[in-house]
């Protein structure tokens, strides 16, 4: 794609008309047709515009990359908090947060020390350290923590691949073999999460001997991430083919 300014057009036996044509966008083929087919047309190519830079999705890609970066940071912080989440009862934590929210809204009154919203940093650090020390003392906690670490690691890899792909989109050259490889890695990570969820479901069914684990979000993750992995694999194949076509196009003189 080129940004072209027509400087002048001169018809036979007439003086040149120039100076009042706006810049227009033309494909290279159209530019060649204009210069080769018409006599007396003078063009000035003011700017070679990469074909991706005028497409609005690049703005979306910029926003998405910022969100992916934020998610990656949250993911890495989450790694530190996994033992705390495993050791402390999630229901108690949730109830405590809910009570504070209700106190803020004036629905429920709490004692002053419980209503305090700010948490001293040293207290937070102490809880995190205690969590890391305690989590290895029970087999159930160890397995739960390992499951969360595996899923968190796979999620971090998926986010990193998304970040790299968005980088290439912002550069204006998304159809590269590198992106196909990124999507393949993301597919394997999705299947890793699905496999971990399946293993956890099997373990819970074996230990609890009820069908209650089938009614949790964990069960939903199995088919969801399995399909997501297949989708990434399809996209990887498509991007690989697109990269091949792009290379053929670039090397077509």
């Amino acid at each position: 794609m080129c940004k072209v300014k027509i400087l002048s057009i001169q018809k036979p036996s007439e003086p040149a008309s120039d100076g009042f044509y706006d810049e227009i966008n033309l494909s290279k083929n159209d530019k060649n047709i204009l210069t080769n087919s018409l006599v007396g047309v003078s063009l000035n190519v003011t700017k070679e515009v990469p074909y991706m830079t005028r497409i609005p999705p690049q703005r979306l890609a910029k926003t998405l990359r910022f969100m992916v970066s934020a998610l990656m940071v949250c993911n890495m912080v989450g790694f530190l908090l996994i033992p705390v989440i495993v050791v402390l009862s999630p229901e108690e934590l949730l109830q405590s947060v809910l009570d504070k929210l209700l106190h803020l809204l004036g629905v429920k009154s709490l004692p002053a020390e419980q209503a305090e919203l700010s948490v001293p940093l040293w207290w937070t650090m102490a809880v995190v350290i205690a969590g890391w020390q305690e989590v290895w003392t029970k087999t159930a906690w160890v397995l739960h923590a390992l499951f969360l670490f595996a899923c968190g690691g796979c999620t971090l890899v998926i986010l990193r691949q998304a970040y790299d792909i968005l980088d290439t989109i912002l550069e204006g050259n998304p159809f590269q073999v590198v992106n196909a490889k990124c999507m393949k890695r993301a597919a394997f990570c999705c299947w890793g999460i699905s496999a971990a969820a399946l293993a956890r479901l099997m373990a819970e069914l074996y230990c609890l001997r009820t069908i209650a684990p089938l009614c949790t979000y964990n069960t939903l993750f199995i088919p969801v991430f399995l399909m997501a992995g297949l989708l990434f694999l399809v996209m990887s194949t498509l991007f690989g083919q697109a990269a091949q076509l792009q290379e053929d196009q670039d090397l077509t003189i």
Partner: protein
Amino acid sequence: MKIVVNLDVMMAKRKISLSELAQKVDITMANLSILKNNKARAIRFSTLEAICAALNCQPGDILEFVPDGEET
């Protein structure tokens, strides 16, 4: 087997440099260099036409088919 582009031979015969030819044909020097070094995958008829017009030659003067085993 492959198609070999003998552009440098014809350019030497016509005593024209790469930059001059690129300007005449209206393609970048980088692309012309890719063509000259046999790295191109394909060439458009419009480009071939422009090159033949600039060098005053036939496509067969520029393109040569080299079977397997005869590549130099």
